[in-house]
Structure formats: C-alpha cells, structure tokens
C-alpha cells in the first residue's frame, strides 16, 4: 500500500499541497482527479522522490522510499526517460542492465502489441509512439506499484484504445496502479478508486463501484457535485 500522509508543498508563494492524504492499495487502480495544475503530477513526483516535500511523509509498504524501492515501484511520466539518440532496443538494454526486475520477454511482447520496431530512435517517435514506449519501460518491470502520469494525454484515439487495453489485461493484475488523467471518460469503467483533489487537499476518495451501487452516481456526477 502507498500511503501519502498530510504532505505540504509550497512552490514560491503558492501552497500547492496543503495537508494532502490518501492511500492506494496493491491490486487496485487508483485515479487522481483534479483540474490542470492542481498538483497531481507533483504528488506523483513526490512519491518517487523526484521533488521534495516540505512536510508530511510518504510510505511505500510502510517504508520511506530508498534506492532499492525502484525495483518495487516505477513511474511513467508524461515525458521520455531515455536519451533521444537511443534506439528502442538500446533503451531496453539499459533497463535490463540496471534493473533486476526487468522482464525482457514482456518488453518484446509489448513492443509487438504496440506495433513498434526496436530499431526506431526515441527522438524520432511520434507523441503516441513515445507514450507507448514509456508504457513499456514501466510495465515490463516486475514491480508492485506503477505510477502513470496522464497516459492518454495528447494521443490519438487508436493509441489510446491500445493503452486502455493494457489496463484490462494481466499486465496490471495484482499491481497497485496510480494514474492521473483529465480524460475521465476513458477510464471511468477501468478504475477501482477515485481520489478527488482540489485546493491542495483530497476532498473525496471513494470506491467507484460502491458509489454506483449505493448512490447511482458516476465519477463525473460526483465531480460535478464536489467541484462547484
């Protein structure tokens, strides 16, 4: 379980995170929801120690993050994490070199699924293809937690459908996934939990199916209520 406890973060004069807390369990897909700029990406970076927080704590399975945590948790950001001069196969080699949890077979399978060539250079890829490569770099690791930042942003609909398929497959099963998106419609039927963020705080976190069952509301309905 990933626990985010009461984190605060100021950026310049702006208080971005103001006592924000939520949890994300293994085996569930948790979606962080909020308007652009509310701090969803910052939260993910903070979990991965890619940006500092002013106070509060973040625990992964009860522990603070350490260097070997990166064999347990990975982050798929909105940007490439490899050199533009690298070919896809070079990137895979790099990952295999440094990560024990890298699954080369799965990487190859995903490459085929996404219909990409291992000789393509990262710098020459379209935005959609880049997003897919990013996804492979994250999902081909046998990690317990996967964080994805806007996996659908700026991507054509067919690439989006391909990426959405990943969520319904064995690739996600059993793992704890946190994702952010502002295309709620793409993921409503895929996610387990929703965490609504506004003004630096979590205003509501709930199980999506429970809300449907008990209140007959969709995530978008709840959002309309909560974000006046």
């Amino acid at each position, binding site marked *: 379980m990933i626990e985010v406890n009461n984190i605060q973060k100021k950026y310049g004069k702006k208080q971005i995170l103001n006592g924000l807390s939520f949890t994300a369990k293994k085996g569930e897909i948790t979606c962080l929801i909020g308007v652009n700029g509310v701090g969803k990406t910052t939260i993910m970076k903070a979990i991965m120690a890619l940006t500092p927080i002013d106070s509060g704590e973040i625990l992964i399975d009860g522990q603070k993050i350490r260097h070997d945590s990166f064999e347990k948790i990975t982050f798929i950001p909105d940007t490439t994490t490899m050199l533009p001069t690298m070919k896809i196969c070079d990137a895979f080699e790099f990952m295999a070199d440094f990560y024990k949890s890298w699954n080369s077979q799965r990487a190859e399978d995903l490459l085929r699924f996404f219909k990409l060539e291992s000789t393509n250079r990262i710098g020459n890829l379209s935005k959609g293809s880049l997003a897919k490569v990013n996804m492979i770099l994250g999902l081909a690791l046998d990690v317990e937690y996967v964080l994805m930042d806007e996996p659908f942003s700026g991507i054509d609909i067919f690439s989006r459908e391909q990426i959405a398929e990943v969520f*319904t497959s064995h690739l996600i099963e059993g793992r704890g996934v946190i994702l952010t998106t502002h295309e709620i419609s793409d993921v409503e039927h895929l996610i387990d939990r929703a965490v609504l963020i506004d003004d630096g705080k979590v205003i509501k976190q709930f199980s999506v199916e429970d809300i449907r*069952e008990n209140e007959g509301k969709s995530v978008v309905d709840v959002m309309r209520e909560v974000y006046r």
Partner: protein
Amino acid sequence: MSVKFNNRDPVYVQVIRHFKEQIAKGYFEPGQEIPSRRELANQLKINPNTAQRAYKEMEEQGLIFTEGNMPSCITKDELVLKSVREELMMEAVDLFLVSIKSINVPLAEVLDLVQKKYDADNGEVEELT
C-alpha cells in the same frame, strides 16, 4: 462479446445482467463454458477486479459454477435458468406497466394492441425469411 456500459450502475451488476440476458435469449447454453475472468475483462474492456466480483456474485447466485481447476460454466440447473427468464420477464412487465399507467389506459385495450403489434412484427419477420 462487447457491452456498452453506463457509468452510473455498478459495472459488475451490468456484467451479471448481460449474462442473464444472454442466458434468457438462449445465446448461453446450459453448461456452456464461459471465458476466464481475465479474458472477460479483456473482451469487455473492464477492470479485472470488476470481472472477478461479477463472477463471485454469479457463483453465489448459482448462475455459474466452477469445478476445481476447470473453466467456469453456465449452470445446468433448470430451476435457476427458469428463474432468470422469469426475472427478466418480470422486469420487462414492470417497465411496461409503469409506462402505460402514466398514460392511464385500460389494460384490455393495451393487451389487444400488444397482440396485434406482436403478430404484425412476426409477420414481417416471416416475410423476410
């Protein structure tokens, strides 16, 4: 198999409903093998947890059964199958009654119309075949 899900009813409930419809229509035969949870999740484009929950519910309701490590199958129990058909029929009837009550028409007149329309539609179908 593809289902259009709405976002207001629990997805697992909609999955179970879909199964019941398929059974009532006869598309699912008694004892027929159904896809695994994973395959279902993939086909319907839903969260594997949801597929899992749907199967659990259907197992509890007796709609499906799983023998050991074999794939799950539709029940062969005639009683259960009959009650599924009845359940769906009752739903349709309830829906129908609610709509005609709002128009405030005597039942005999409506039933007559229903019979006529039903025959007409069937006739068309026969002409086509």
